[in-house]
């Protein structure tokens, strides 16, 4: 009976068409138009193109010669690397630890997932206060521990040499740490779900054979989590390419000294602040190309095992 209702495909197609039309209007058409825009000269948002660039591929030349674009690419690749190592790595460790306890597992699941439900803007503002130059939480802590230099002037005024967490020496840590922290919970939940799907019989059998905790993790948990980890890595890599909101709230336009650009923040700045819409479109194309290439590579490198 159930198989009969799928014999006529027309109703199903009818309901697929609106979604397709929606995507065509709001994804495919803008994407194609965006590629066309990269060859045009557009002096502002909403303004009509003033003709082709000279030469028409001018923006692509600029893309490969723009020093700030190189900075953005370098920072984005560092972000991807950190995402793989720290976001997925920490999430895996936390998931294994939480899976190993009987009491409070649900509590830790909620706690670790919590940052995901807070908006990136709110998190950015919060971390801005934490790393604030004068009187920020971290700097006050360092001051109370005697880790910051102070000086007393002849008039009795005490000078504190606060640590600038956004300067060239520290900005990468200050930018990447909140991003890592925010998404650990997301991968944590995925991995915990994967762990729940592993049959307890396997662990029981291993325990009977004398395997200790490390060996059970090494020879049972990790191999059986391979597919879940592969999914996490692909999501992490493609997600890192799109990171924008939190770094933008904390660092704005390329702070410090134009060394803090990411591909996402640079594209936004060129398009909305500098009104260089055609160049912004070109950066957007690069982000899409990078996303497709990197997700393909990660899919091949971390190919899910068909045996599992």
């Amino acid at each position: 009976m159930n198989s009969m209702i799928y014999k006529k495909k027309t109703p199903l197609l009818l309901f697929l068409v609106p979604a397709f039309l929606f995507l065509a209007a709001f994804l495919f058409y803008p994407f194609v138009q965006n590629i066309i825009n990269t060859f045009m000269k557009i002096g502002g948002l909403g303004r009509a193109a003033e003709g082709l660039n000279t030469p028409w591929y001018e923006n692509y030349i600029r893309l490969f010669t723009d020093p700030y674009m190189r900075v953005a690419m370098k920072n984005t690749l560092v972000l991807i690397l950190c995402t793989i190592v720290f976001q997925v790595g920490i999430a895996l460790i936390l998931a294994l630890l939480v899976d190993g306890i009987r009491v409070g597992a649900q509590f830790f699941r909620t706690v670790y997932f919590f940052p995901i439900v807070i908006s990136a803007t709110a998190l950015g503002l919060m971390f801005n206060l934490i790393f604030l130059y004068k009187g920020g939480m971290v700097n006050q802590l360092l001051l109370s521990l005697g880790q910051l230099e102070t000086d007393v002037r002849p008039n009795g005024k005490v000078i504190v040499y606060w640590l600038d967490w956004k300067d060239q020496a520290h900005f990468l840590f200050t930018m990447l740490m909140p991003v890592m922290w925010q998404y650990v919970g997301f991968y944590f939940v995925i991995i915990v779900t994967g762990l729940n799907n592993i049959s307890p019989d396997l662990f029981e059998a291993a325990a009977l054979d004398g395997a200790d905790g490390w060996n059970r993790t090494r020879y049972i948990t990790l191999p059986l989590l391979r597919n879940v980890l592969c999914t996490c890595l692909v999501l992490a890599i493609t997600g890192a390419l799109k990171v924008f909101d939190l770094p933008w709230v904390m660092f704005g336009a390329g702070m410090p000294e134009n060394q803090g650009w990411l591909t996402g923040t640079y594209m936004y700045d060129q398009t909305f602040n500098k009104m260089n819409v055609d160049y912004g479109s070109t950066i957007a194309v690069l982000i899409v190309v990078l996303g497709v290439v990197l997700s393909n590579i990660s899919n091949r490198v971390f190919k899910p095992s068909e045996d599992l």
Partner: protein
Amino acid sequence: MKRILALILAVLMVFALCACGQAQAPAAEAPAAEAPAAEAPAAEEPAAPAAESVTLNVVTSYGGDDGNRANFEAAVKAYEEATGNKVNDGSATSNEEWKAKVLTDFETGSEPDVLFYFTNADAEPFISSGKVVSIEEIRAEYPDYATNMKDSMMAVASDGKQYAVPSSGYWENMFVNKKVLEDCGVAVPGPDYTWDQFLADCQTIKDAGYTPIACSLFEVPHYWFEFLVMNNGTVENHLDIPASVDDETGAKWVAALNDFKALYDAGFFPENTLTASDAETVEMFNQGEAAFLIDGSWKVGYFTGNAADLNDFAIAYVPGKGERSASEAIGGISMGYFITRKAWDDPAKRAAAVAFVSLLTSDEVLSTFVTTEVTALVNGAKPAGLNPLQQSAADTNANITAIAGAVQDLLTAEARGDLFSNIQNVVTGKMTPEDAVASALALN
């Protein structure tokens, strides 16, 4: 089962179509809400409520936390009560994104009926495409339109016509923290303050453990840029744009950037000036950690609401250098009310739009928007109840001998952004001033 499924699908589809169709409904009713022209109130005197009210779409920069938001709302309410018309207020905070949105609305045919906007080059796209009505054309039908304004102070567009009825203007000058100056034994700068005196004062202030200049070179170097450019030229040639980095004006801009570097190298800006936000450095000044701050008339409202004691602050003068006197400042009237062609051509809205602008720019209403700002009113504004900082600004403005507009307003957004983001590269020696100016000019 198959029939039930087909029925469910059919019902869902009907709901979906209904949902799509309902979005159109209010639009169909909209024209009925707009009154015929004959019943709209007269321009100069908001008349008794019309039989059928008109809904005016108005966009201004009096949105968000603008200091005049409450005054604008009061004026809109007065207009609505006097005329019976409704105002659909689409105001927002003025920034580059807001400017872009307004221009996009004009491009897509969804412009408002009345727009309060910049009167400089930013307005040229919709002026040149004939999307707003000139004051001359409006006066042909409403002879008393904007006659309470000095015509000589109304902005002139590239076609030689005037379009916007000016509102209050702005000034930029130097705020000083008197308490910090007192602690350091430095006098409040007067109208004859020189650059050499300023450098000496900055060193004294720095030695006393305070930051001489509150400024975020990362976020808002433009106030200092304006005055440093004027210090290397004159108030008369301040608005000249270099044709190249090698010409006289280009050399003036290069010298201004060199002054930036000299101040940075001397350690007169905050330690974290390259990573601090404007809010951080302004708060530093407010908390008595810094002595000088260049900002605009709009910042008076901030200190009025946030300073512990307004008597600790004063508006002084930016030190003069070369041919520029400290009594010469940046200022002008940069915004005004436009009536769009769309509203003018709509018989239901023409008189309502004229009445709205007339009320918002009347002597009485404009006086509520003004404390120390310049206006184009023939009779002048009559602000009442000035606080100590506002009084200080009024006293300083009384000694201003000449003003020039901000030269950055004549640059394209891309050139402006490039120039100001490169100032941090110039002060740190990563880029020469010549390269920074050339880079900006190439994008202008």
